[in-house]
């Protein structure tokens, strides 16, 4: 036996085969199928207006999904993002109402998000508490805190700043909602970070094998800490978009949002085990679920059917993915 490996002795697989092996392509095919199905069955589905509307609606899950995926890739979970959406809307709206300044409001919201991210990240990375437990805890604490503070009432946006309204109603070139533009820009930026910046690769390494990452000189705790901060800040951005879309700070905002985002992220091939998946996959997962729910609404299906179908698709998609992975590993 020479060092020539059996693997490298073979010709490299063709480009097409490589593409097909990629999670993202399978998802893209899935998305196209969803689009094709509803284009035929639902009137107006394929209109520019409806497509861009869905992009606007998807911007929330896309933005928060980036953070969710990054935390997953680092090998942890963050289910506090739904409550966070409601929490950061408070400083945002209150400060805007007081100061009539979008900049100050957004800064306040980001500061709040930063603090929450620091708390989550510290408890997971430095205190060593299981991230599911930590974020389950902070999820309860934040939701309860919002109820306590607001007395379970929404706080209206009295400032009605044009710039804030534009976040909900405005469209770039009169076509793409600004919220979607924000989500796409963030997606591109963080996608670039995850693939081409050393820190992004460190996150993959930490999630892929924590011990190896540590031996490679990475500060594993710091990497995880930062991931939680990123997640909280991105959820903050999602929260700001949501606040604009509903013109207020909603105490019930983001209830069950974490489930939606987690489902979309896992559907997008980001593994809960860490180290596997991409933001592109996550984005495709979000879009599939968003177009699905838009299409099902278009079909006039009641909520109960939408729930049943979405649940089935999530299970089927993950089962399919798992089967594919097992076949690839020959087990």
């Amino acid at each position, binding site marked *: 036996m020479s060092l020539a490996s059996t693997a490298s002795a073979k010709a490299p697989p063709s480009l097409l085969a490589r593409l097909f092996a990629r999670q993202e392509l399978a998802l893209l095919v899935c998305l196209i199928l969803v689009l094709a199905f509803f284009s035929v069955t639902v009137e107006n589905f394929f209109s520019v207006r409806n497509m861009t509307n869905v992009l606007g609606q998807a911007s929330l899950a896309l933005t928060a999904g980036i953070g969710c995926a990054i935390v997953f890739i680092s090998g942890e979970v963050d289910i506090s993002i739904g409550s966070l959406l409601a929490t950061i809307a408070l400083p945002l709206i209150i400060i805007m109402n007081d100061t009539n300044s979008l900049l100050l409001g957004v800064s306040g919201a980001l500061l709040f998000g930063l603090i929450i991210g620091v708390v989550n990240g510290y*408890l997971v990375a430095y205190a060593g508490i299981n991230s599911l437990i930590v974020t389950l805890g902070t999820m309860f604490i934040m939701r*309860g805190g919002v109820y*306590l503070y607001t007395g379970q009432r929404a706080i209206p946006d009295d400032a009605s700043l044009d710039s804030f309204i534009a976040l909900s109603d405005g469209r770039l070139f009169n076509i793409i909602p600004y919220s979607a533009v924000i989500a796409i820009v963030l997606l591109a930026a963080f996608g670039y970070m995850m693939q081409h910046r050393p820190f992004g690769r460190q996150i993959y390494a930490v999630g892929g094998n924590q011990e190896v990452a540590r031996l490679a000189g990475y500060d594993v705790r710091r990497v995880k800490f930062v991931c939680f901060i990123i997640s909280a800040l991105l959820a903050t951005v999602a929260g700001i978009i949501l606040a604009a879309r509903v013109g207020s700070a909603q105490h019930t905002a983001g209830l069950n949002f974490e489930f939606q985002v987690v489902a979309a992220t896992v559907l997008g091939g980001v593994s809960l085990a860490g180290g596997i998946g991409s933001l592109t996959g996550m984005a495709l997962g979000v879009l599939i679920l968003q177009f699905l729910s838009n299409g099902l609404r278009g079909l006039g299906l009641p*909520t109960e059917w939408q729930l049943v179908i979405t649940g089935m698709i999530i299970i089927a998609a993950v089962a399919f993915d*798992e089967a594919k992975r097992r076949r690839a590993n020959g087990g």
Partner: protein
Amino acid sequence: MSELTHTSAQKRFIGGQLLGSSQLVLGAILAVLCIAISIAAPQFYSEANIIAILRQCALVLIVASGMTMLIITAEVDLSVGASLAFVGCIGMAVLNSTHSLALGMLAALAFAGGVGLFNGLVVTRLRVNSLIATIGTMMMLQGGVYLFTREAVQNHNQLVSFTDLGAGYVGAVPVPVIIAALIFVVAYVTLRFTTLGRYLYAVGANEKAVRLSGLRSERLKLLAFIVTGLCVGVAGMILSSLMNAGQPTAGRGFELTVIAAVILGGTSLLGGRGSLFGTLLGVLVLKVIDNGIIILGWNQDLQMVVPGIVIILATYLDIIRNKANVR
């Protein structure tokens, strides 16, 4: 850590370990809570209130007993809340049409067990992560219950035996508390003293080793899912008796309460470690907090905040205690 491995003088993990670990912290928290609340509000110690707390604990404890077994095998079920509502409706509907508590109960158990079976099959056969699989089932059940009934299923027959299931008493003790106690004892004995219990721990601790030892690890996990389902079946019937109707809207957030109680009780989400006694303490702590906040007349929104803090705090204290033990 290989250097650690041959330390013959390592620690006194004596048999009392099961009682010793996280339960100590939790027991202390419970004691402090009870004492503090009773000082501030003496009604806390009234017989009526203690019975009310126990009844509130009953539903959670029933499902948490199954969930503890499931989490010990390193799986989890988020669909129990949605299933709880559905089960109540089905049990009530069958009870209405058959006039038989036994048949209603049977239908409820069959359905809930079926949900557990489904979850178990998806997890063991299709190898879907149980967190995701049961989020999927949760959605399907939430939708499915409204396909089954859009309205609360009313109790048409008003069978006394059915009403007693939720609201009845044996002596001074509410029936649900007795049922919960029975299920708890059975689960406790199973986990502690039977081969099955030992296998459940083993599956959670190392599934491959269990398979190599000639045991069917998938079946064991499947069983844990089904048992969890059956517990939901019992709880669902008690709830519909208490509500005097099958409520499709019931059970929202119930899964989180149950899982929180189990985690609080020191059962590890990674499997292989945990105890039912801890779960009992976990349920008591959560429900005493809930009750205490009402008794003290505090803002009810604290009922979310305080458990959140307690879960994180208890886990953290446990970690610190473990570290101190190793030093």
